[in-house]
């Protein structure tokens, strides 16, 4: 874990409120694994804002974010050359593949971030990587060329049908499995809006496919000391409740670990 002042090397406005930012921070870049996140200080707000690591090279890390509120909007206004204060890498930083043969990645919107890093990081791994990427429309399906070259197969899905299939990504996934059928060694990895995650989890669990999901919660410290970011756990304790810290035991978790009912009621 490092706290560092990183120099922004590039920031791109991708349109529709989405941004791609790269900053120099060798310490973090060298340690980051897919699933890790960083905690960014945004001067417009109090608490740091958690953002998944989207890509790394030797000395810089990339993030991919949507300006949805005060903090991310501030971040969106930074310019190359400016410094940002980062803590990271944070989280368990691991999609447990338990030697998967076929990795089914399902991304929605900015949920692409950790999955993109997974693809980049595991480019050379033997497992076959199939990406399902859902977005509102063609304008918000980003990094298409990079993805086509990183993944073995790419299925783009848009709500208005302006690119790829029309509809929701979970429908496309279902269609895929109807034709291809499940293989053993399949692992689903997903990140996106809770509504989407919910459908993906129930599908995967119904089909008995291990499902790794990257969740979100409101965070205080981002590094395990405040117990703010907890998620209801499937296994309950003496007093009927049990929670685990998303920032240290996640943000990527096995779907079976989550008390789905409580979690999806909560968000």
């Amino acid at each position: 874990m490092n706290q560092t002042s990183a120099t922004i090397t590039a920031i791109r406005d991708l349109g529709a409120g989405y941004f791609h930012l790269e900053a120099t921070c060798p310490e973090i870049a060298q340690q980051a694994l897919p699933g890790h996140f960083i905690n960014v200080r945004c001067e417009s707000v109090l608490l740091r804002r958690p953002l998944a690591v989207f890509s790394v090279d030797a000395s810089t890390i990339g993030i991919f974010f949507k300006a949805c509120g005060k903090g991310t909007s501030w971040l969106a206004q930074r310019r190359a050359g400016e410094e940002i204060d980062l803590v990271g890498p944070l989280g368990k930083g691991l999609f447990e593949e338990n030697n998967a043969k076929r990795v089914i990645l399902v991304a929605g919107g900015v949920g692409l971030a950790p999955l993109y890093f997974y693809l980049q990081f595991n480019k050379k791994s033997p497992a076959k990587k199939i990406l399902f990427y859902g977005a509102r429309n063609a304008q918000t399906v980003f990094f298409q060329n990079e993805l086509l070259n990183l993944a073995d197969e790419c299925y783009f899905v848009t709500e208005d049908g302006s690119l790829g299939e029309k509809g929701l990504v979970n429908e496309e996934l279902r269609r895929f499995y109807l034709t291809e059928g499940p293989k053993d060694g399949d692992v689903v990895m997903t990140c996106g809006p809770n509504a989407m995650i919910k459908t993906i989890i129930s599908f995967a669990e119904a089909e008995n496919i291990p499902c790794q999901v990257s969740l979100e919660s409101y965070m205080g410290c981002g590094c395990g000391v405040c117990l703010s970011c907890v998620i209801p756990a499937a296994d309950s304790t003496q007093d009927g409740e049990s929670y685990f810290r998303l920032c240290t035991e996640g943000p990527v978790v096995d779907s079976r670990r989550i008390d789905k009912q409580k979690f999806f009621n909560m968000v």
Partner: protein
Amino acid sequence: MLCCEDSRLQVDKGRLKLKNPVISASGTFGYGIELQDIAHPEHYGAITLKGITAKPRAGNPPPRIVEVSGGIINSVGLQNDGIEEFVDKKVLPIKRYKTAIIANINGTTADDYFLITEKLNEHESVDYIEINVSCPNVKEGGVSFGKNPKAVAHIVKGVREKTNLPLILKLTPQVTDIGEIVRAAEDNGIDIISLINTYPAIAININTKKPVLGNIRGGFSGPPVKPMAINLVWETRAATNLPIIGMGGISCWEDAVEFLLAGADAVAVGTWHFIEPDIATKINQGLCNYMDKEQFSSLSEITGYTWRQYND
């Protein structure tokens, strides 16, 4: 030499003896070791561990934190594994470091406090016990004790009988007369006063029309509470000569100085750890520079400097 080892920073008042005046506030620094890469426990005069209870507690349903008007409201609700394995699993790891250890104890009944104290006393593993009678996030006990002088007297008396360790009482700000609580504690053998805990607070999402926190109510902390905390330290100083650990909204060394001038003997940092994990070193450094500039030769000269001009 690290400034946090500077001898001018030593605190030696009554039973409060620290190498420097900066303490980590309970619940905001885990069990002291988690952040050592970026915030080393030895930079602190003392580490207050996350609050413990007799039995394990799952804590409150999430969401447990929300950012509002420059501060945060939390409703963690004392999630912890209970006293049973506390010493082995939580105290021993931090014990290797050169800093004082404060256990923050909580109960839904007075007996809980006594039982936890007994266990801690057996092991002699912690340096201080902080009696938390001010947690707004638990249904029974917690702040309801801290608001009632009789309950405070009873708990302090009972804990005192179980141990000879220096005892800290952690006060809630949500009381009519803080002096009354302080006197009840002092009459029953408390050694040190710490304040403030969080203010009961609620945030409502006007779109969902539901409280943002799973527990409805939570505790407000962070920069906005500072001016109220300074006032309560000022009032506490008037009520007792015991050592005071001042906290509430500290985010920089200037804030720490303000607490000292108002009468605090040491300070604790809570919420700000989430923004600047390395705040302790910065405060100690700032204090040293301030002492140079203002020609204070020891921390105790700063303590109560302003307060005395109006109260002696």
